[in-house]
């Protein structure tokens, strides 16, 4: 069985590319929240819940939306056959710190439910699944660095041994100095269509190259 990478989106500080082409860039350097808000408006996401998310979820949601937008045929699929496989290095550390800060003053003790709810990294997948009613397999891995072999092998197993037909794979990391996202879509394909544009064979080497580009 063959599988192909049908679209991808990469976000690094102040710059977003989709399918290898520049999508959005800030002329001057901005803090991550401001950059993400500007990109949300530019990309016309029209999903007000975005503003309630923590930075990690915003990064993941934005990258996923832009990757999916570039891959129109996924909408026709049975949503129970779409899987979400994400990974990062820093788990939900950014929100964990915010929550710890919120509960550090015992005299002014008001833990925020909307901060606390993001103290798990797999909430990213929950947000994406809720928005698109995706109900297939999901997994979130923590690894020291971007691991294309892990994402490739896990999604391949899903495509080969379950009813999964489409996988949204990603690396979404948010920490003090390390903020980036790379989300790509993999679909089952028994043949590679001619003139298929940016579609690439699903291999760990191709995944690595796209991430490093």
């Amino acid at each position: 069985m063959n599988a192909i990478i049908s679209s991808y989106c990469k976000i690094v500080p102040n710059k977003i590319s989709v399918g290898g082409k520049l999508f959005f860039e800030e002329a001057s350097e901005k803090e991550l929240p401001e950059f993400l808000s500007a990109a949300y408006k530019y990309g016309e996401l029209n999903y007000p819940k975005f503003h309630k998310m923590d930075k990690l979820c915003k990064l993941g949601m934005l990258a996923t939306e832009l990757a999916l937008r570039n891959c129109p045929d996924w909408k026709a699929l049975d949503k129970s056959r779409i899987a979400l496989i994400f990974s990062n290095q820093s788990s939900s550390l950014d929100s964990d710190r915010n929550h710890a800060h919120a509960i550090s003053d015992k005299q002014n003790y008001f833990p925020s439910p909307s901060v606390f709810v993001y103290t798990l990294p797999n909430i990213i997948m929950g947000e994406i699944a809720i928005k698109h009613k995706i109900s297939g397999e999901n997994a979130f891995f923590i690894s020291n660095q971007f691991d294309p072999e892990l994402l490739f092998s896990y999604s391949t197993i899903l495509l080969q041994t379950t009813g999964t037909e489409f996988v949204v794979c990603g690396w979404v990391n948010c920490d003090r100095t390390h903020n980036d996202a790379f989300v790509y879509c993999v679909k089952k394909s028994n043949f590679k269509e001619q003139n298929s544009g940016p579609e690439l064979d699903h291999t760990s080497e191709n995944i690595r190259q796209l991430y490093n580009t």
Partner: protein
Amino acid sequence: MEVQEIIKNLKVQIVEQLNLEEVKPEDIDANAPLFGDGLGLDSIDALELIVLLEKNYEIKIQDPKEAKAIFTSVQTMADYVASKMK
């Protein structure tokens, strides 16, 4: 504090506390439902509203059954706050 003043304050506090970036306080209809069709708040927002009352008005909602009626709209929230301030 008059109910109208509480309503005005609550609208600002709700927008801030719930990060409703695309909503202006003055756009909130005091009688519109907070959940469902109105502002479209969710269960986490409900918890934030409980924190909001505690933080800003020192009002603790002890009985969860009370919350549904209190958080029907900004108006019902303001009426509840006013009743506790008397």
